[in-house]
């Protein structure tokens, strides 16, 4: 019992302790010192949490069916911790430049990371909800940091009100699903004659999670919330909210697949690296979910990519491109036309590659932006020529998001498209590739802008030590994931010995 508690909650506890230390020390420091000391304190705790995560990674275990730990979950948690460090270092750049009077954002970043780690570990809707709210509430306040800016207040209000509504939608779905199955586990099956209720509840849950990841048609909050947030917060939230939301969606989908393939798995905890073969797809009712998710994927790809083409600020560009990335990731949910094993490995890989690249891109870009994170693309022209190292790092990270080799983003897209072809959805794969070409246009336009022109309009400051270190780690991870994808893709999927009653 104690070992399961340790394996699942110890890394989160260390990170939460870091947040408490930051919050407790904050009022005792002078304003200028806050931006020097607190990010480092947070980073130390994040590194400790990562070490603990490495130390406890081992057998798949679960805690009363509420939270679980397995190989894939621990990689995803490590990605969250890395994104938290990248976010902390970016915030340090941004806030110290503007002499922000307070150090709470660092604690909020760590708390948000704790919430997302709980979302990753969750294997039950209630456990998921705890993580979801911890992450959401922390990120709402981080979005509205610059209280004197009009667009910041707009972003905060829109994101908060819509987020609260969709949290209610989520809870209503959980209530209906509980009424249908008598359990809040991901892998619960409907009782006799309550399939329709179960379907309704799960649809509401999926809708709420699609809102959180910013998939069309639930994407309206994303451009405004991303634009109002400070630049590093934009990257951080794009990364961790996607990890949390998509891990939950993927885990729920995998649980449905598991139950459909083997009725004996009902109520048990499903490891994320597993694959299942569904013999009778038609009678499983999974195809209805497939249609919803694929429709959202196609819409996200079209709306996200074509809207991003016309954007003139970096944060809005990243907002629409994050909508399009939600589309690529939703393509991984496609069901095969024939009987064959289905796994979500391509989703997990894409998620890690995207999260690291997007968080680090924005942290690196923070150094190039003006006061109050002025990020008009035209002002960034020529910035890379004055800081070549930063330019190279940004180019690699953006190439990863665009899906160009030699980066992890390329392999992520390759895995998703090749899986689609293997599942018999050639048209979807072709659509995805065409959209990736459209995506490459606006990403490359940004990179070419960085390296050309003279635009001396914004005084560029270099990155601080912490930001350099975190961006460098992100670049190394982005390239290393391409070189050694087997660490994640070929993970043995040991079944969890369920301790759930």
């Amino acid at each position: 019992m104690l070992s399961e508690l340790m394996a699942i909650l110890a890394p989160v506890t260390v990170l939460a302790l870091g947040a408490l230390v930051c919050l407790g020390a904050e009022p005792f420091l002078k304003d200028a010192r806050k931006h020097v000391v607190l990010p480092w304190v947070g980073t130390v705790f994040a590194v400790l949490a990562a070490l603990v995560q490495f130390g406890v990674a081992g057998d798949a275990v679960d805690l009363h069916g509420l939270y679980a730990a397995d190989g894939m979950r621990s990689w995803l948690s490590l990605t969250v911790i890395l994104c938290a460090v990248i976010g902390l270092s970016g915030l340090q750049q941004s806030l110290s430049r503007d002499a922000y009077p307070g150090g709470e954002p660092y604690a909020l970043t760590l708390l948000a990371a704790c919430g997302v780690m709980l979302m990753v570990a969750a294997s039950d809707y209630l456990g998921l909800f705890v993580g979801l709210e911890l992450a959401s509430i922390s990120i709402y306040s981080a979005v509205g940091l610059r209280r004197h800016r009009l667009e910041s207040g707009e972003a905060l209000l829109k994101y908060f009100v819509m987020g609260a509504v969709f949290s209610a939608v989520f809870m209503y779905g959980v209530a209906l699903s509980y009424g249908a199955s008598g359990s809040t586990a991901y892998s619960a099956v409907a009782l006799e004659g309550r399939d329709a209720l179960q379907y309704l509840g799960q649809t509401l849950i999926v809708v709420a999670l699609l809102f959180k990841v910013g998939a069309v048609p639930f994407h309206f909050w994303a451009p405004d919330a991303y634009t109002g947030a400070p630049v590093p917060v934009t990257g951080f939230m794009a990364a961790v909210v996607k990890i949390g939301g998509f891990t939950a969606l993927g885990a729920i989908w995998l649980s449905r697949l598991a139950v459909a393939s083997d009725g004996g798995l009902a109520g048990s905890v499903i490891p994320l690296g597993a694959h299942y073969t569904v013999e009778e797809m038609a009678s499983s009712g999974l195809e209805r979910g497939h249609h919803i998710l694929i429709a959202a994927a196609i819409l996200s790809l079209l709306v996200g990519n074509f809207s991003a083409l016309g954007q003139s600020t970096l944060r809005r560009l990243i907002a629409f491109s994050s909508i399009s990335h939600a589309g690529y990731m939703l393509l991984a949910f496609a069901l095969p036309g024939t009987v064959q094993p289905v796994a979500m490995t391509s989703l997990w890989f894409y998620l890690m590659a995207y999260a690291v690249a997007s968080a680090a891109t924005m942290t690196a870009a923070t150094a190039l932006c003006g006061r109050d994170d002025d990020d008009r693309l035209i002002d960034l022209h020529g910035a890379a020529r004055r800081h070549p190292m930063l330019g190279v790092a940004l180019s690699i990270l953006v190439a990863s998001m665009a899906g160009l080799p030699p980066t992890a983003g390329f392999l992520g897209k390759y895995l998703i498209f090749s899986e689609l072809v293997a599942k018999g959805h050639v048209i979807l794969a072709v659509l995805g590739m065409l959209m990736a070409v459209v995506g490459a246009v606006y990403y490359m336009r940004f990179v070419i802008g960085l390296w050309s022109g003279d635009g001396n309009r914004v005084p560029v400051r270099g990155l601080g030590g912490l930001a350099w270190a975190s961006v460098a780690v992100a670049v190394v991870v982005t390239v290393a994931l391409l070189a050694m994808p087997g660490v994640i893709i070929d993970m043995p999927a040991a079944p969890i010995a369920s301790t759930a009653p």
Partner: protein
Amino acid sequence: MHVNPYAVLALVLVLALVYVGGALIAARLFGERGRELARKHQAVECSSTPMGDARIQFKVGYYLFALVFMVFDVEALFLFPAVKALAEGDTDTGILMLEIATFVAVLFLALIYAWRRKVLEWQ
């Protein structure tokens, strides 16, 4: 006699509509209408003349105090089950005391934070 529980609910709903709707319709039919007086539109203030506007700006400081109050409110609420478990004696006392101490310490941190950020000083 077996009655569907939802039928009772429906009956209550119908009764509620009849009762409230009936009262409104009856008032319209049989009620006596007096002259339009300005006093009729006044706020009811225990039969004394109201002073000023009801819509005043609320001092934001109250909310901060309410938030700090919440810290202790929640603390007291969550200590009850712990005390109950302690009284029944089927939990390890040492571990329970440790859990309570951790919980109180985290909440105490919130108070220190509020104190240092001068939330407790009325401005």
